[in-house]
Every structure is written in C-alpha cells, then in structure tokens.
C-alpha cells in the first residue's frame, strides 16, 4: 500500500525566464535563452551560454537581500525559484519548521571562491566568503531566507543532483518521515566549470544541437527549480491541489567512466526501467521523454541506445530542452521536471530546437510544435561518473484512477539494521584498530592521514590520476565490503563536506595564476564531489543506487540517513556508506582564516570511513536502532527527540574548540542527563566527515565490548563495563544535528 507523491507547487528560473509564466511562454513559442555571454566575467566569449538574464545585484533587489548580507549567485537563483514554489503550494512561514529542504548543487559558492582565491591564500580580503565555498552553505543560505526548515541537506551528483534531491524527498514522504519536502537544485555558471568543460573539449562554440548528426558539444546554462512534494493526506488537509504526481523514479550507476557514458547506456537504462517499475507502468504508457540530451556526441548516442533498449521500436516522443536553457548542470533535473509539469498541464511537447539531421543510430526528436494530451512523462538527468536518474511524472487524473498501482513498493522494514563492517584511514594507523590500545598522539594542529600502500587496491595506471581522497575511499570501501561478508552491496552512498579539495585547489590555482587556457582536464574531472562514489562504483562494478551528499558536518550523516531510509522502505538490503574528506595545507590555512578550522586546541585531520550496513546478519559489529537528523531545532523539539535516544554512553564531537565545546557539553547534559560522555576528535582530528569516524569508533567499541579509557571525556567516568549502547550525538554550531543510536 503506497501513497502517491503529490507535487503541490513548483518554481523555476533559467535563461528562458524568471517564473513559470515566462518559462511556459518561451517553451510554447520556441524562444531560446541561449546567447552570447553577458554576466560571467571570463575571457571565453566564444561560447554561447544560457545565463539567467539578471545580475547578482538585480537578483538581490528582487529578493530584498540587504546590502551587507553575503549571497552567492547559486543561492540567489535558488531563493527566486523557492519563493515561487512555496507561494504556489500556499506554504506560510509558520509551516516551514515542519518542512524539509533538499537541494542539489555542485558549484556551491565557487563563483566567489574563483574571484577571491588568491586573496584567501595571500591576504585578509574577502575572507567572509570562505565560509560559503561549500555546497551545504549554499543550500542553507537559500533556505534561511524563508525560515528554519526542519532539516536541510545537499545532494551533489554533478548534473543529476537536483533529480536525486527529488528522489530523496519522495522516499522520505513514502516512509512517513515528512508530509512536505521541498526539493530541487540550483547552479550558476562559473569560470571554474566553464573552463573545466572546455578542458574536456565538450563545449560547442555554436548553439547546441542535441540528437543532431552535426552535434559538437553542449552550451552551459544556469538556473534553479524547486518542487513541493506532499503526501495526499497533507494536501487534502490543507486544501491544496496537486499540479502533477511524482509516480516513479529511478537511480542507477553506469559504473563505466568518470566523464563518459557507456556505449550501451547501462546506467540510463536501469534508471528509466526502475522509474517505470516503481510506478507499475508499461513502457507503452509513456507519452513523452524529456531527454538529458546535452548535445555531446557521447551522451546523445548513449542515451538513444538506452531508450531503444527500453522502448524497442516504439520510442515515445522525445526531446532535449537544453537548446532553450543551456545545460543547467546540477539544476537540470528539477528545471526540466518543471518543464514536464508545464507540458502535462498545458498539453504540448517541448520542441528539440535547432535539429535538422538525424544522427546514426539516434532517436528522432520532436522537431515541430505538437499539441497533445499527456499522461505520463519521463525526465532524465545524468551526471558525471554515471550517476543516472530518471523521474516519472504523471498528470493529476492518475491520482484518482486505479492505473497507478505502485505495487512494487514494499511495506516498510521494521527492527534494527546491522553494521556489518567499518574501516578507516585517518591520522591513526590505517585500516586497523590499533588506536584502541596504541593511539598516536599528535602535537601539531593539522595532520594528514597515514596512507597505507594502495597497490593491493588500485592498479598503478588507475592510481596515477587519483587524489588522496579517492585512493582512501577505494581502499576503505574494498576492505569494508570484504569484511562485511557480502559479495556486493545494493547501494553506494557517500558523504563529503568539501569533496576532492586537492584537485579543486590545483584547478583554482591554475585558473587564478595562469589564466583560462591550457587547464588540466584531470584536475577538473577529479574536483567534483561525486567522483568519490562513482569511482568506488567503477572499481567495484556496482550499478546500484549511487549518490553523494555534500552538506557540511552532516555529510556522512546524510548518507547514513539515506541508507537507513531505503532499508526501511525495503528498497535495498545492504549499503556501503562512506564519509570522506581530505585537507591540504593551503585549504587548512584558508579555512582557519575563515574561522572554520584551527580553533584553540583543535586538531584538524582527514577522514576516510567506509561502513557496510545490512538488513540481516548474524555476524556484525553492532546494531543501528535509531537515527534522526534535525536542522536548527528548538530546545523543546530536541528534548522530545532525545527521549527516543536514551543511551549509557554518548559519543560527542568535542574537538578542543573551547567555545563550541562548552555549548556542546551544556546541551548534551541538558538533553541526556548523566550519561557518560566519550570523545574521539582528540585522536582522529576535526574534519567535515569526522562524524563518520565517531560512528566507526562507537561501532568498534561495541564489537570489542570495551571502551578504551582514553575515549572518556571525564576521567571519573572510566569503566571496564561492557557497553550495551552508544549514542553518536553530532552537532555543529547549533545548526545541524544528528543522532545515531547503536546497540551491541
């Protein structure tokens, strides 16, 4: 028995307009927004782009942002789209604290970082922008403009980010964890990725021509779109009507190459097939496909092949809308989902503009305006690394008729989940539990991880291009899967606060010092956050669900939440959950300057943790019995939640940052009374995914039946007693909280 997911509001901004009215008008009248570059400051004027036709200042004015407030372009566009979506769904300020916000982005605050990078390195100028470099800050900046959402997190799977945000939101509603979740994505064009795509030689100097024999690459675009997803009961109670139904969705990994799609379109095929299966709809019921259709020779051929595999000779009308907007990268999944909603509501097929010659073995796209009543449409979004997703959106008549069974969706799985294995590479002995009896004690305030030999995990020809974070992720993942006793896992879910910062630094450095020519494609390709998860999939040949979260200090926790959610829904039986962050000396100094690292006695480290979770096992480290994430909760709300997380021991994240530790300890005492407090950051260091190490440490303590004395925050608490449970209480600056209850 599964409930349909209603879309009760949506908002969009892109090159073809601000808001749905302008967008619809452009789509109906075949008016493109792609043209010469106006707003981005770059020397690459030769590339046409789909810019939102507003400067940052004009957007600030539109959204009433005060002159001294910091706002990145991605966040500003996000606010514009979110504003329209919330208004459409009649969501008031009072409702926000009970609503979730999930956003997709990859560039985050890169528009500022690429302007001020040399300042960050060399002087004190513009240091207030350092804290908004990352993806999570961008989502929070967008969200904060409207109030305090119940939870906020960020998906970063390159060009499928927004589609995956939609999938997470839908799963949360299906599992009854929320009545309303606002989902989507935002991404502005930056010099960083314009040059990155140029280094990959996939930008066209002419207007892009998806599915045309003469196609020669993509045009970059920008924009944002959000959908309000809501349960049927909630919409009924509030008296709001659905615009469309999200009746299916699929996510799969191509597991082929970091920047190219496989010739047989395996990931795309699986994603579309899963979307149909979830909605229990046969392929012949699909009336239209909004293709990913970037216009690169590789994508369009691979996507055509995947579609033909699924639909055979009867491929439904299909078009790419990237000629209207340019490729809006991380936002494309939600922007094009809004186009699909408009097509369903207004009964038309968006035209694949600028098409004239069929490609060999390609699909023939919709190339003339067609009015047609549509019932079910597919919307594809594929990302680098083969993070492929597909959404099935249906018109509202399907909610009242019985043809939408959603029969494949099982009943929620109750009971505990099992932690089958946990492996780490950090500043302690790598891939070992030596820290229990022989911890390494550091005096320096910044230490890098101890790397094992990677020869057993990665061939030299593959390893030569990988940054440290990638090697560590692959080694811990392979060890964790081996130790889990499973042959393979159903899903690979990764969290990373800052992603592949080493290669990001190389690319930023070259861009800032040498200019916009002759940049290394390797640095760019390795700089995206989802490189980690997708490389693990390529290395372990895993086509299952694959996503990456990039949300500050709850990145690992967000990954864990997704794994727990999908196991509860019965969608997967096992998952590899990773928490990976690396730190370079340059970025450590930048973050210290930005007030984000290096406080008082705090030690900064690096983290690589891979955990395998399963729904069944008789050989495990510990059980996971409860999990919850909260964003800016009131003390009353925290107290209510805390009653479900009673534990004898609490793994705290105190790090040697005096001010925040004091608040942390006071809050922990108020919430959990006399439970004994533990710490781990004095051994493993602070990092954005340190909470993954906290999880690892707690799991190993429960397995060994002993908590080493050096983990106790208060010497008076030290005990040899066998722990029966540990609560990992992760909390950063009273912003984002996560509670994970583990039992022996």
């Amino acid at each position, binding site marked *: 028995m599964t409930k349909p997911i209603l879309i009760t509001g949506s908002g969009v901004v892109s090159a073809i307009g601000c808001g749905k009215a302008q967008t619809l008008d452009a789509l109906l009248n075949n008016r493109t927004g792609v043209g010469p570059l106006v707003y981005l400051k770059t020397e690459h004027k030769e590339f046409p782009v789909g810019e939102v036709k507003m400067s940052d200042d004009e957007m600030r004015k539109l959204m009433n942002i005060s002159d001294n407030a910091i706002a990145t372009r991605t966040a500003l566009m996000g606010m514009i789209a979110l504003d329209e979506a919330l208004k459409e769904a009649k969501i008031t300020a009072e409702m926000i604290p009970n609503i979730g916000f999930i956003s997709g982005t990859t560039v985050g605050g890169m528009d500022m970082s690429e302007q001020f990078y040399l300042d960050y390195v060399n002087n004190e100028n513009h240091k207030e922008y350092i804290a908004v470099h990352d993806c999570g800050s961008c989502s929070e900046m967008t969200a904060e403009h409207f109030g305090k959402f119940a939870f906020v997190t960020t998906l970063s799977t390159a060009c499928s980010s927004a589609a995956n945000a939609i999938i997470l939101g839908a799963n949360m509603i299906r599992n009854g964890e929320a009545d309303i979740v606002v989902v989507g994505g935002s991404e502005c064009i930056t010099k960083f990725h314009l040059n990155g795509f140029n*280094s990959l030689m996939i930008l066209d100097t002419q207007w892009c021509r998806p599915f045309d024999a003469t196609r020669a690459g993509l045009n970059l675009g920008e924009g944002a779109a959000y959908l309000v997803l809501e349960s049927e009961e909630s919409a009924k109670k509030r008296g709001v009507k659905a615009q469309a139904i999200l009746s299916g969705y699929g996510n799969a990994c191509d597991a082929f190459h970091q920047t190219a799609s496989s010739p047989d379109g395996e990931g795309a095929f699986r994603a579309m097939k899963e979307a149909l299966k979830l909605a229990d709809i046969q392929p012949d019921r699909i009336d239209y496909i909004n293709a990913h259709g970037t216009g690169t020779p590789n994508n369009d051929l691979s996507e055509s092949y995947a579609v033909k595999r699924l639909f055979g000779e009867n491929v439904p009308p299909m078009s790419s809308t990237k000629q209207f907007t340019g490729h809006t990268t991380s936002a494309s999944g939600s922007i094009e989902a809004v186009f699909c909603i408009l097509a369903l509501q207004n009964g038309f097929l968006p035209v694949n503009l600028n098409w004239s010659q069929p490609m060999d073995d390609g699909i023939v796209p919709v190339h003339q305006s067609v009015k047609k009543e549509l019932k079910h449409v597919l919307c594809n979004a594929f990302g680098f690394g083969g993070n492929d997703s597909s959404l099935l959106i249906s018109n509202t008549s399907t909610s009242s008729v019985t043809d939408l069974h959603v029969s494949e969706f099982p009943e929620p799985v109750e009971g505990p989940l099992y932690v089958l294995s946990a492996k780490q590479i950090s500043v302690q002995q790598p891939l070992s539990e030596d820290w229990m009896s022989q911890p390494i004690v550091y005096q320096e305030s910044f230490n890098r991880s101890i790397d094992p030999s990677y020869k057993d995990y990665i061939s030299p020809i593959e390893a030569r291009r990988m940054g440290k974070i990638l090697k560590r992720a692959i080694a811990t993942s392979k060890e964790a899967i081996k130790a889990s006793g499973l042959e393979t896992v159903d899903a690979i879910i990764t969290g990373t606060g800052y992603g592949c910062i080493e290669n990001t630094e190389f690319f930023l450095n070259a861009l800032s010092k040498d200019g916009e020519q002759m940049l290394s494609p390797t640095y760019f390709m390795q700089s995206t956050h989802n490189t980690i998860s997708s490389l693990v999939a390529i290395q372990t040949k895993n086509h299952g669900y694959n996503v990456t979260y990039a949300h500050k200090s709850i990145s690992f926790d967000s990954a864990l939440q997704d794994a727990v959610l999908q196991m509860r829904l019965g969608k997967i039986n096992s998952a590899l959950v990773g928490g990976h962050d690396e730190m370079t000396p340059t970025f450590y100094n930048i973050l210290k300057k930005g007030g984000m690292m290096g406080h008082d006695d705090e030690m900064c480290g690096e983290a690589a943790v891979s955990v395998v979770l399963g729904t069944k096992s008789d050989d495990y480290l510990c059980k996971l019995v409860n999990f919850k994430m909260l964003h800016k909760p009131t003390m009353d709300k925290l107290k209510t939640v805390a009653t479900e997380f009673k534990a004898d021991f609490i793994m705290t994240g105190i790090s040697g940052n005096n001010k925040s530790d004091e608040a942390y300890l006071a809050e922990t005492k108020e919430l959990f009374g006399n439970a004994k407090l533990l710490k781990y950051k004095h051994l493993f260091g602070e990092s954005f995914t340190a909470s993954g190490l906290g999880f690892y440490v707690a799991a190993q303590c429960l397995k060994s039946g002993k908590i080493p004395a050096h983990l106790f925050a208060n010497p008076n608490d030290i005990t040899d007693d066998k722990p029966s449970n540990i609560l990992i209480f992760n909390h950063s600056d009273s912003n984002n909280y996560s509670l994970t209850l583990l039992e022996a």
Partner: protein
Amino acid sequence: MDELIYTLKQQIIEALNLEDMKPEDIDENASLFGEGLGLDSIDALELIVMMEKNYGIKLKDPTQGKEIFKSVAVMADFIAKNRTK
C-alpha cells in the same frame, strides 16, 4: 628527431603522471592507447594540453588526437611539422 622523441617521452611521463616509467620504457612505435600503455580519453585530452603548452599546437577537435597519438613516433612527426614554438 631522436632528441624530440626522447624529450616527448619525458613530457608524456610528466603530463600523464606515469610515475614508475622512464623514457627508455616507452617504445616509440608502440601504440599509446588501448593495448600499449593503456591510456584513455582523458589522457588524450592531457596530451592535447601538453602539445599546446610545449609546442604551441592547438587542436580544436579531440577526435584528431586519434591519428596523432597513435605512437610517440607519429606524435613527434606531427609536432615537427606543425610546431609554432
């Protein structure tokens, strides 16, 4: 030509981060991609950047690389004929 071939091998090793290799290990007539050194499309892009940096040769279309990067000898021949620096 021999000198150019030797220099080119050094530049390939550096550009592609082939840490464990020496110029002597590369057979200038062997195929660089596929079965030879086992390089891929990203390596081809790195070689395009390398040729522009060191020899002032700018390729507009990545598929041109297929012919030029057949072997170090073919690459050296192309560079000798087209270099602007």
